């Protein structure tokens, strides 16, 4: 796990007690994606909760990710022809 590109808990040094805005902003997505090791996650949370500059930005990015997740699901329906074709292929294969 020494390969830096693997990321995750094994590769980062222990989180400092205090993070700067810059350090927190650099971790915004890893934090919101739940990809940070616990100590870094806690350090970012401590900073963001008390920082009036970072708090609204993190909140905005969280809304953005929620929006992409919800809206991106789409409402597409498979056509009846596709279903019929698949059923035909399956019965063709079961008889073979």
């Amino acid at each position, binding site marked *: 796990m020494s390969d830096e590109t*693997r990321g995750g808990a094994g590769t980062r040094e222990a989180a400092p007690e205090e993070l700067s805005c810059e350090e927190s902003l650099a971790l915004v997505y*890893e934090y919101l994606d*739940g990809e940070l090791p616990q100590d870094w996650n806690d350090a970012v949370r401590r900073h963001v909760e008390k920082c009036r500059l970072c708090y609204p930005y993190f909140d905005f990015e969280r809304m953005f990710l929620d*929006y992409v997740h919800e*809206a*991106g*699901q789409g*409402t597409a329906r*498979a056509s009846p022809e596709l279903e019929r074709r*698949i059923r035909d292929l399956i019965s063709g294969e079961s008889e073979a």
Partner: protein
Amino acid sequence: MTNGMNQASESGDDRRRDFESEALPHLDALYGLALRLTAGDEARSEDLVQDAVLKAWRSWDRFAIGTNCRAWLMTILRNTFINQYRRDSSRPHPVDFDEISEGPGAGRLYDADPEGRVFDRLVNEHVVSAIQELPDEFRVPIVLADIEGLGYQEVAYTLGIPVGTVKSRLFRGRKRLQTRLHRFAEEMGYLP
């Protein structure tokens, strides 16, 4: 007669009926995922769904009833897509996507609308088309992570790229999406 996990002693008809009743209800979900992965290519998405369901049918004996059939099918479809995608993209691409900067437009949506009110006003079609407009290199990780909910490691494993690349593609892709949504919002007069 198979001795797999799945109702080894069933007749062929029962086996087929089981498969159809477990798997076919997920066709819409599979088709939706295929559309997202192919940037809305309907014919290619139908082929992808068909290939994935047939693969699932051929390995139905290895599927354990009671486990999550939808997740199993989605994984098969994802892998089917990725295999084609890797084959198609094995030739070197003229653009190195990891070198592209997002430019001065990035971050403007937050500056224009820090409270994110625009997310209540844009309709789903806006984000769907903004995602479709992304180059594959950004779109596929975003679909896998942000819509399908895969973790960084899973995305990296699925795409055969390092976790650091997943992070930077997600970052750049998300900034591009925000830039595009910003433009939609401006066009629609949605910005505060």
